[in-house]
C-alpha cells in the first residue's frame, strides 16, 4: 500500500465497489439461476456457472444475481439455466455450456434477444408466492 492522491482514491473506490456489489442482492433486477443438482454438475454446470460469473465481470454488469439451485427436472437437457429479467419473458435454457452462457449474457441480457435453439420452457408457477 502506498499513499494515495484524490484521483487514486476515487479509482480505488470504483474498483472495490464493483467487487463488493457482487455480494449484494437487493436492487439487482436480473436473476440467473443455474441448476446445480448431481445431473447438472455431471453435465458441466460448475463450468457454466464460472462462465457466467466471468462474463458478467468482463461485461461489467453489476445488477445481476447469480444463484444456484437444485434439479429443475430437465435432466436430459442439463445444465439448465433460468433467466428472469424485466422486459423479457422468464426463460429456461437447456444444454448451457460455457459458450452458451457467454451467449446468454451478451444476447439475452445485453441484447434482449432470445437464443432460440436453447429454449426449453418457461418456469412453472411458484406456489410459495401468492
Amino acid at each position, binding site marked *: 500500500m502506498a499513499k494515495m492522491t484524490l484521483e487514486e482514491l*476515487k479509482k480505488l473506490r470504483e474498483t472495490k465497489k464493483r467487487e463488493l456489489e457482487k455480494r449484494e442482492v437487493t436492487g439487482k433486477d436480473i436473476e440467473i439461476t443455474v441448476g446445480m*443438482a448431481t445431473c447438472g454438475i455431471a453435465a458441466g454446470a460448475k463450468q457454466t456457472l464460472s462462465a457466467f460469473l466471468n462474463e458478467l465481470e468482463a461485461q461489467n454488469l453489476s445488477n445481476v444475481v447469480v444463484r444456484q439451485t437444485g434439479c429443475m427436472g430437465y435432466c436430459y437437457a442439463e445444465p439448465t439455466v433460468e433467466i428472469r429479467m424485466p422486459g423479457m419473458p422468464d426463460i429456461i435454457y437447456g444444454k448451457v455450456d460455457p459458450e452458451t452462457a457467454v451467449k446468454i449474457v451478451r444476447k439475452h441480457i445485453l441484447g434482449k434477444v432470445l437464443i432460440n435453439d436453447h429454449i426449453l420452457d418457461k418456469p412453472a408457477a411458484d406456489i410459495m408466492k401468492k
Partner: protein
Amino acid sequence: MAFKNYVLVCGGTACQSSKSEEIYKNFISELEAAGIKEDVQVVITGCFGFCEKGPIVKVLPDESFYVEVKPTDAKEIVAEHLVKGRPVKRLLYQGEETKKHAKVEDIAFYQKQFRIVLRNCGVINPEDIYEYIARDGYAALEKVLFEMTPDQVIQELKVSGLRGRGGAGFPTWLKWNFTKQVNDSPKYIVCNADEGDPGAYMDRSTLEGDPHSILEAMTIAGKTVGANKGYIYIRAEYPLAIHRLEIAIKQARELGLLGKDILVSGFDFDIEIRLGAGAFVCGEETALLASIEGERGMPRPRPPFPAVKGLWQKPTVINNVETWANIPVIILRGGAWFANIGTEKSKGTKVFALTGKIRNSGLVEVPMGTTLREIIYDIGGGIINGKKFKAIQTGGPSGGVITAEYLDTPIDYENLQKLGSIMGSGGMIVMDEDDCMVDIAKFYLGFTVDESCGKCAPCRVGGRQLLNYLDKISKGKATRDDLVKMKQIGAAMKRASLCGLGQTAPNPVLSTLTYFEKEYLAHVDDKTCPAGKCKGLIIYSILPEKCIGCGLCARRCPVNCITGEKRQPHVIDQSTCIKCGECYSVCKFGAVMRK
C-alpha cells in the same frame, strides 16, 4: 476469479464469545477440504445486531440467515449448502410470525430498523479498509478536503439537526463552531468511547463493525475546526474494538488517509488511542480529558467548556462514538436528507442495546420518534415466557423507568426527559412482573455509588445515604418519613452535584418512586415485596399437607437447611435459609410457599 458464494460470519464480541472465530476457521478448512476454497469468500463482519440468536452466519447470494450456529455446523453448511446448493433448514432463522424459514428481509427484527450508524455493521469486513472505501468510505473526507469550506461543513451539520448521542443531546454543529471560532492553537479532536452503562454496547459494536467511519469523521472535524491531532479514549475492557481500531489506523496511515498531507491536500491529521481503566466517571467529558492528560479521572466545573478550554487547556471538540458515526453520512447525503428522519427536535436515528426480559435482545437502530411499543413488541418480539411487561429502564444508571401507560410515547430527547428518564447513551432494559422496583433502584444506585469519584459532597455523601435508605426499605425497616427524606436527598443531588454522574444518579430512585409508589409502600407499610425479590422480606416454608416427602428440595438446597424423613413432610430451618428460592422452583407439588 469471481466468487460464487459469500459467507458472512458475525465477528462482534457477543458472537465471538460463542465461538464465531472457530466457526470462521472451520469454514476455511472445510471449504479447502471440499475443494471449493476459490469459489467462496468467507468474511468476518461486525455485529448483525441480532445477538439473541448469535452466532449469526449469512450466506449470499441466497440470503440464508443462519442462527445459533456452532463450530461443528460449518461442515454441514459447506457440504449441503455450498457444494450442493441446499440450505441447511434446521439452522435457518424461523420467524415467529410466519413459522417458515425466513430470509433477512422477512425477519421482523429488521423491519422497523433504519441503519445509518450501523450501515456497515454485518456488511463489510471491519479489518479491510478497501471494503469500507467500496461503501463510499472516505468520500465524505474527499468532499470536505477539496470541495467544501469549513463554514459549509458546519452549515451542513446545522441543517442536519444532529445532536450529541452521548446522552445530553447538545447540538453538534454548535460544539464544532465554538472550537472553530476560538483563536488558539493547537486544537484537539476527541472521541469518547468510554461506554459504561450496564447492558449497553452500542459504541463497542460500532467500533468493532465499522472503525473507519470514526476515523473519517474525526479527520473531517479536524479539517473543519483546524485541529491536527485526535484521541480516541476507549476502555481497556474492549479488546476487540481496540484491536480493530489499531488495524484501521494502520491501514489509513498506509494509504495516506491519516498522517501528513492527507490525499496530497496539504492537511495533516493523526489519531492516537488512549486506554481507560474502566472508571464510569471518565465518560464525563472533563473527567475523560483529565484522564487523557494522565491525571486522575475527575470532573471539573464548567464553564469553561472543553470546546474553548479542553485538553491541555486547548480548544477541543469531544463527541461520542455514535455521533461521529453519523458525520460522514450527513456530509455525503446532505444535512437536509438527515433532517427528514426523526422528529421535530430530534433528528436522525438512535441505536439502542435492547436487553433484559425481552425475546430478541440485541442491537437496534430506529428513527427518532419510534415508540417504545414498536421497539419492545415489533422488533424485540415481546416479553420472554409470555410474562407481563412492567417497565423499561432507559439511559442506564442516569436514567429512569417508563411504565406501560407511556409505551406509545415517541422516543426523542425531550419526551424521555419529560417522563423522568433520559435518552442516555442508549441502553434499554426490559423488566417484567418478577422484577422488584426497589431492587432495580438499589442495583443502579449501587453502581453509581461505586463509580462516584468522590470529589463533590452531594454525590459522594448523598448517594451513600440514598443507598442506605433503599437498603432499609428492602429489609422492611423503613418508615414513610424515610421516603420523604429520599426525595429531598435526590433533589439536592440533582441540583448541587458537580457533574452529570451525580446530577443523574438519583434518577432511577426518583422515577421508580414516582411510578411505583405502591410497591415502595408495600415494602414500608406491609413489609412485603410483591415481586418476591427482596430477600429480607420473604420467607419460604413447606406446607405439611402438600409435602409428600420426596426430598427433592432437600437435595437441591445449597445450604442443606431442609430436613425430614423419607415420605414425611420436610421442614426448612429459617435460621440458615439464604432465600435462594431453589426449593420453591423445584417442588412439583406446590408444597413450598413464598410469603
